[in-house]
Every structure is written in C-alpha cells, then in structure tokens.
C-alpha cells in the first residue's frame, strides 16, 4: 500500500504498542541543549539510569550563551552554572558535546544538519520545539519536553501517538524579493497558528523542489508556529548533495547504499493524505508579522485587519494584538519605524541567510537610531561567513557581528529588547515579551527585509526600496 514518508518512518521505528495505547517509537538521533536537559539528567542520576545510546546523543549550548564576550566563567552566573551542568552531564554520561572550544558549537538545529547528523528516514528528538527544522531532510523530528528528554536518554525511545499528514504544495514562481521565510509566514497566515494541530506538514510542489536545503530548513523550522509539531520535505538529489562529505554522513559505497534507502523512504506518488493544500507562489509577498502570534502577518504593503471586519470570535485577539503593538486596524506595516534589527536564529541564521542580508547592506549604513546585530547560527557558519568577508560587510554598515547562539530570538542571554522597542527580526516568534522585554515588540520578516529595515530605519518593501533614496524623502 502506498504510504507517506511520515508513515514509512513511523512504521520503521515503531517498537510496539504500549499498554497506555501509545506507540513506543525508536529515536535515531537525540540532540540536547543546556536549557531543557539538566532536570532530565538529574532524574537519570536519581533513578540510577544510564544514557542508553550515548553514541546517538549529541549536545551543544545555544540558548544562554552570550554572543559578545564569551570568556568563561560567563558574567551571568546562572548561564555559567547551566553550562557547567551540561559539561558535567556530557562527561558523566559519555555524550559528545559541541562546546564553545570545539569549533562546532551553535544552535542545535544548525549543527545537526551541518555535521550530517540529520539524515533522511531518521527519527530525531530534541528538547526544543524548532526540532521540526530537521524535517527538511526527510527526517521525522519531534520537539519534546524535559520528561521526554529523560525518556529518550534512558531508553532511546518515547511514547507517542501518530499524526495525520497534510501535504502543502507551493507551485509556480516566487516573485523577486520573496524568500522561504515569506513562504512559511504566508502558509501560517493562511492555515492559522493552530491549523496544524494533529498534523505533520509535508511541504512539496515545484517551489519547494527547487529550494536549497537552507530554504527547506527555514520552512520546516516554523511548522510549529503553524501548530504542526513536525514538518518535512521528501528527500531528493538536493538533500543528498548537501549531505555528501559532511562529517557524520556515510562515506564511499555506504553513501550510495544510504541514498537507495533514503530514496525509498520518500512518500509514494499515490500516497493518500489526510488533507492537501495548494498555494500559488505568485500570491506570496514579502510578509511581515504585525501582531503577537506568527499567524498575524500581512504582505508588507497590505493593510492590517480591523477588529470590526473579522469574525466575532477573532475580534478580541486582533484588538489585543493591535493594542499591544500600538498599531491601528487598516494601517500598513510598511513605514513602521524600528529600533532594533536582529539577523540570526535557527530559522534564518545560516550562511545563505547572511549572504542575502549582506547583499542588501553592502555599502550602506544602518540608520542612526537603529541598533543592529548579526548572530551566526553556528561557529562553522561564522567561520564560513568571515572567510567570505561578510563580517566586514556587516561591520562596515554598522551591524555588530556576534558569536553563535540563539541570542535575541528568545533573549535568554544578554541580547534583549529594552522597554517598548520594536525589532525587525529574522527569528520565529513574535509573542509578547519574546525578545526579552515584557513590553517589547517584534516584527518577523526575512533576513533581507530585516537588513533593509536596518538601513532604512523603518520597514520597507524590498521590491521597490531604493537604498540610495532617503526614506520619507
């Protein structure tokens, strides 16, 4: 019978049906970071358990690392103690740790793929909701909580119920100035922040087929913002070409054997889906969020909804968002003055993202009132970018070039908004308080749009913006 990739991977990794009615699923790769793991390791110690498959478990620090001064001990003593806890846990339990000294540290969802750890047909778990990123390779990758981290550490399995599968096809041609970030923001806007609950999202169509792995990762990354715990793209030649020669990818004849199996795990052409959504690429504009959840977005020159124009059940949410953001229904987001520009995160902190942003800022200057930072997704991304001179391009324009980490995506390190600041951000969440100030405001957009906003000092439409003409002139 024809099956989807999700069903094939699920069936291949299902150990048994547990007495609680859920499935025991084997996890091929477990990624660990400092925020959601210490309580899990503590419980292992308490119960006298070991890490069942330390060779399938990899750790890094990303959420709390300072991106400016990284000398140890960190100035933030709690960040320091979380880091030491992870060091101790990795040492005691035999887990490979990509620490700051390794040259391989970075955001957990950047380092898995860049090392070739993330592979098609695999099950992956990590105590972070953006684990969906790894689905770009045709893996089934679950964001989990700390108790499940404990379960995966102790048993290399977890207890789960299967998901339905929604195929989302994006066909046609993206217009110039429209990026993978706009595609996923458009999808979330269309299907809603809870539209994906109970589903795995399979992204397909000729637009996705033509995308690079970096772009596919951006799309899969934000599946969770659409309510879908996992998202994936069927593996193809683009996937295999990316993986070849990565440190943990198969070598020589093994690679060909792997490609045969990876190919066999893709959804069958006649597989049945629980739902199919088709999107015309030409309908997608550079998209910007204006509200307090990632579904509250609009084409950059579109108009914000008015509470009185939406369904009665949605009015309170729209009003709350407009009030928090100090926007008026019916206005445009284009022209909104920004205070901060942030380029980075597991959504858009990879080399190609930095290249796109650098193209925009090259030879320009960040507006005088804007504080702008670029945070590479990993140490390897930083090194590659520096080799191309991107750090200098950003620095010349007035951006701060930082060290790798999650940084201002969730502001668990010193990188935070202050007060009511508005941030043009290439990250994934615009929740109230997300960027470190309870009253701070976030506008999500593509890295290129963030770069342009940094220079212009306000949100601009990169399709029509001319950097040489002062904004407002």
């Amino acid at each position, binding site marked *: 019978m024809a099956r989807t990739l999700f069903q094939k991977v699920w069936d291949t990794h299902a150990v048994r049906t547990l007495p609680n009615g859920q499935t025991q699923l084997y996890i091929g790769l477990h990624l660990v970071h400092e925020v959601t793991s210490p309580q899990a390791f503590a419980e292992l110690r308490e119960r006298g358990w070991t890490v069942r*498959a330390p060779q399938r478990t990899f750790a890094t620090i990303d959420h709390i690392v300072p991106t400016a001064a990284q000398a140890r001990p960190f100035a933030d003593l709690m960040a320091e103690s979380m880091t030491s806890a992870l060091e101790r846990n990795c040492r005691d339990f035999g887990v490979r740790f990509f620490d700051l000294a390794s040259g391989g540290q970075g955001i957990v969802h950047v380092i898995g793929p860049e090392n070739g750890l993330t592979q098609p047909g695999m099950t992956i778990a990590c105590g972070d909701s953006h684990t969906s990123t790894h689905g770009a390779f045709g893996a089934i990758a679950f964001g989990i909580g700390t108790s499940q981290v404990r379960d995966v550490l102790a048993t290399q399995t977890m207890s789960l119920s299967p998901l339905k599968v929604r195929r989302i096809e994006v066909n046609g041609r993206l217009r110039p100035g429209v990026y993978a970030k706009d595609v996923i923001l458009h999808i979330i806007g269309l299907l809603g922040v809870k539209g994906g609950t109970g589903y795995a999202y399979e992204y397909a169509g000729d637009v996705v087929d033509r995308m690079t792995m970096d772009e596919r990762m951006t799309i899969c990354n934000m599946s969770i913002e659409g309510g879908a715990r996992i998202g994936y793209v069927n593996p193809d030649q683009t996937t295999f070409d990316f993986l070849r020669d990565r440190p943990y990818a198969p070598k020589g004849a093994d690679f060909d054997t792997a490609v045969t199996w990876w190919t066999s795990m893709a959804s069958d052409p006649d597989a049945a889906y629980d739902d199919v959504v088709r999107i015309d690429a030409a309908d997608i504009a550079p998209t910007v969020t204006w509200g307090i959840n990632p579904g509250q977005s609009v084409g950059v020159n579109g108009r914000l909804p008015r509470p009185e124009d939406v369904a009665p*059940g949605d009015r309170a949410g729209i009003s709350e968002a407009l009030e928090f953001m100090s926007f008026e229904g019916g206005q445009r987001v284009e022209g909104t003055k920004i205070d901060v520009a942030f380029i980075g995160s597991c959504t858009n902190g990879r080399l190609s993202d930095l290249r796109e942003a650098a193209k925009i800022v090259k030879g320009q200057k960040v507006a005088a009132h804007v504080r702008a930072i670029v945070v590479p997704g990993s140490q390897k991304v930083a090194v590659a970018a520096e080799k191309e001179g991107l750090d200098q391009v950003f620095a010349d324009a007035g951006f701060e070039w930082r060290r790798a980490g999650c940084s201002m995506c969730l502001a668990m390190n010193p990188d935070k908004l202050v007060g009511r600041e508005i941030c043009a951000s290439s990250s994934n969440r615009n929740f109230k308080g997300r960027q470190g100030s309870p009253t701070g405001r976030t506008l999500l957009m593509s890295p290129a749009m963030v770069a342009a906003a940094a220079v212009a000092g306000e949100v601009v439409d990169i399709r029509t913006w001319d950097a040489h003409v002062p904004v407002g002139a």
Partner: protein
Amino acid sequence: MSKIESAQGHAVAVHGDDIDTDRIIPARFLKTITFDGLEDHVFEDDRLEAQAHGKVHPFDDPAHKGAAILLGGANFGCGSSREHAPQAIKRWGIGAVVAVSFAEIFFGNSLMIGLACATVSPEQMADLMALADANPTLDFRLDIAASTLTAGDRVIPVTMPESVRSALLSGGWDATSLLLDKYEEVEQLAARLPYVSGWDRLSA
C-alpha cells in the same frame, strides 16, 4: 506509578486564545537547572501587564487563590516545548487544565507530568468561564473515568483522547518504566534499522 482519576477545587479562567508558553512562563525563568520555584513566575508578564493597566490578572486575584482547575481558550500552550510551562502551572497548584483546544507539545508535556488536560466546545467554555468568574468559590470537578466536568450543579462532557485517559487512570502517564519493559524488542528493532546496522558513522 500513581493513578490520576480526578481534579477538584475552584476554577480560574485565563481568557483568550493562543496563550503561548512565553506568556505562561517567560524565558528568563528557564535559566535554572531545576523546576523549583517556577510557580512564583507563572504568567508573570501578563500579571505585570494587567497591573500596569490597573487590572488584576486571575492568578493575582485573591478570590482565585488555591484554584485547582485552569480554564483556557483555543490553542492553549502554543509555542515552545518548554516543560517549564506545565510545571509552573502544576506547581502553582493546578491539577487539570480544561480548554477549547491545546497545542500538541504542551498537551504531551502535561500528560508526562500527570497534569490532566481535557477539552470542551467554545460555547461550553464561555459558560464555564462566566461561572468561574462570577463565582470563584464554585466547586469544579474533572472526573477522568466519566469524562465529565462538574461545575456546581452542571455536568458537562469533556473530550480526552482514549490513550491519554487510560494513561492517567492506569498510572501509565509516567511512561519510562513502560519503555524500559521488554527492552529486548527495542534492541531488535534498532539492529534492523538500516542506518544503525549499516552506514552509521556516529563515532566519527
């Protein structure tokens, strides 16, 4: 494994849809290596925002002190996978969350720590919230076996996936021991996985 059959006490309503985990427990309180004390910061920024607007957040309202059942809207707990969110709610004293719908990871995390989650229709929730707001000392009782929520003299059917219901009732919500049971089956499956038996280079 402890069996969970019910939750009973006063109810506290957190109005609005899409209440995300950053609101339930802001990220700055995740800078910890234990879950101790999270209850002091549950909904902290929302509470501060309410204060700044001269309002009282339900979690600051003395009338709702000691509540055992949290009433929520649609997509409750969306956002990050931080278990700190259900931990903070549970440690504050909540034994069950009844909402219009839940974000999936929050729902799973809650089950893992024995915090019962059940859903009702938006119309029923509007009624329940009105009841709890108007009468903070009204007794609510979630009966997991019967799949009902009793509020005063009203009995409302609630929805909960069968596997979740049986996990709570049997004590199987604490799954680690189940996962360790018959572990030879896990080893057999792992040995059959082409990448585990074939081209793995994880020790590279």
